[in-house]
């Protein structure tokens, strides 16, 4: 009897574990086809769940028989809050849904409302949006890589990833004044004029990321522990994944060549040259490779955006939607009137519905907006990628060892704010 088991036995003589004779060989390890089962609660406060997720797993030895994710601990009623606000006031709410890819959420909301308004966005604003969203994708993937590696036991990768992510957050701070909740992509363009000297800073970060990504890839890709923990783990048949609502890198690691940026380009993504990485191995390692390659492609897009940034204005020519310049507001009567009306009443959006999707770092992010013709949205539904992906957790964990469940969960890269909204 191990020392800790003996202690449990002495404290609680009726403890089931303690009364079992440990000398029997089947006491250790999985016993398929019968024996005692145990129900284990993972979470809600468990570091490997990256948020507040409770997974009720039923175990036979160390084998998971069934896993049931329970969500809702971070439900904040964001969809309800939209209904009491003007459209422009909705942008800060979108930041708080998926707190690792705020700009992608800003972008999706802005695109949806712009579609209802039939607004034309100037090229410079579009390219800026693309550049920042791709930086956001890299920063989100860096957080995923760091925490995922940390779960599996590789500690140093986390520090490197956070170091590079910090550089990206500094870029966001330079642009918007905020590191995380940027609200920088607004309906009709951008929130502020891009700061002076931004191109030099972004170029420097892109160079650093390009070498950094290869470094982290090399740290892990041939590491025997990493390979043993991730190869052949966490697979699901592609049809089942589609059936369960899985999107994004998980599908691409199973061989599905689909990326919303290519399939239905928005924000002039068609003008950028990049490829959609896919793998067919359909395991945790393949997802790692797909995301690493996505980061490289994102850096490529960022560089193209810096080099080819169009001249011109950074917000749409739509005074009834976009706030006027401060300078004009203080010198011109019309601008002052527009400013006052926009701040007090907001702008009306023609009645109708729209469903707009973008490729978020986690998969398909969609906003379904119902407008009734007033200045407040009648209904905003967020189709969040983490919600769909997490639904497959039960199927993914069935029959695997409990140690592999941590690797599988990490490879899903869910954000609980995104799941619970």
């Amino acid at each position: 009897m191990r020392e800790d088991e003996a202690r449990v036995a002495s404290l609680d003589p009726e403890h089931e574990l303690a009364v079992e004779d440990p000398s029997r060989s089947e006491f250790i390890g999985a016993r398929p086809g019968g024996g005692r089962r145990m129900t284990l609660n993972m979470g809600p406060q468990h570091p490997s769940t990256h948020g507040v997720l409770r997974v009720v797993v039923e175990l036979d030895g160390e084998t998971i028989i069934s896993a049931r994710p329970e969500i809702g601990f971070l439900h904040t009623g964001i969809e309800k809050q939209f209904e009491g606000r003007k459209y422009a006031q909705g942008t800060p709410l979108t930041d708080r849904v998926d707190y690792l890819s705020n700009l992608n959420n800003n972008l999706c909301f802005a695109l949806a409302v712009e579609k209802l308004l039939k607004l034309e966005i100037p090229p410079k604003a579009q390219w800026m949006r693309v550049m920042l969203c791709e930086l956001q994708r890299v920063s989100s993937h860096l957080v995923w890589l760091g925490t995922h590696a940390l779960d599996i036991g590789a500690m140093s990768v986390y520090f490197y990833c956070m170091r590079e992510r910090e550089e990206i957050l500094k870029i966001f701070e330079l642009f918007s004044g905020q590191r995380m909740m940027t609200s920088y992509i607004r309906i009709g363009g951008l929130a502020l004029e891009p700061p002076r000297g931004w191109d030099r800073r972004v170029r420097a970060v892109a160079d650093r990321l390009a070498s950094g990504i290869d470094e982290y890839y090399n740290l892990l890709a041939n590491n025997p522990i990493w390979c043993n923990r991730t190869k052949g783990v966490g697979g699901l048949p592609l049809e089942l994944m589609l059936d369960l609502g899985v999107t994004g890198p998980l599908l691409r690691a199973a061989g599905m060549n689909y990326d919303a940026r290519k399939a239905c380009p928005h924000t002039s993504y068609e003008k950028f040259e990049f490829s959609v990485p896919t793998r067919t191995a359909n395991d945790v390692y393949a997802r790692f490779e797909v995301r690493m390659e996505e980061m490289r492609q994102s850096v490529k897009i960022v560089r193209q955006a810096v080099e080819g940034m169009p001249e011109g204005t950074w917000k749409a020519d739509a005074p009834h939607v976009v706030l006027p310049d401060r300078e004009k507001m203080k010198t011109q009567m019309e601008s002052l009137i527009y400013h006052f009306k926009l701040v007090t009443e907001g702008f009306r959006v023609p009645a109708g519905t729209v469903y707009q999707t973008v490729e978020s770092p986690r998969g398909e992010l969609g906003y379904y907006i119902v407008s009734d013709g007033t200045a407040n949205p009648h209904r905003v539904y967020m189709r969040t990628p983490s919600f769909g992906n997490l639904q497959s957790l039960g199927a993914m964990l069935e029959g695997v060892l409990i140690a592999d469940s941590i690797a599988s969960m990490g490879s899903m890269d869910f954000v609980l704010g995104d799941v619970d909204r």
Partner: protein
Amino acid sequence: MLPESLENDVVAAPIARALPNAIIDVKQEVDGPVFYIDPTQIVAVCTYLKEQSNFEQLAGITAVDWWPSVPRFEIVYLLHSYSQNQRARLMLRVAEGEEVDTVCGVWRSANWYEREVFDLFGIPFRNHPNLERIMMPADWEGHPLRKDYPVHGHKYSYQDE
């Protein structure tokens, strides 16, 4: 019936041929046509779309509350076909308390989506395998995304004691 402009629509035309009375209304939105389906035929339409028209994925289900109008709710099905790079939107109009057939048998992802609609709007789904609250606690009263549910406020008054 389908208007003439949609007679060759990749989503609607096959349904109109196979299930003649399923589409009861069509609305043109900024991102394409939206089809209102007869609520009793939603499972048949979804099965047809998945098996014959290759809509492999159900991206989401949600609802819209039009209180105090009648019928009160609209249920929205967001469908996605990867092989054809095509999206479709199906709508149902249902009254308060009216049960809707579940589409869990067609796409497994409908399980959580329908639970969410049940939780936040109080729309029951017939034959759903596990129709419980998903976002709110199990003992919660009311359905928060209904229009007659307040945005602020406490259930109990703490001042009158």
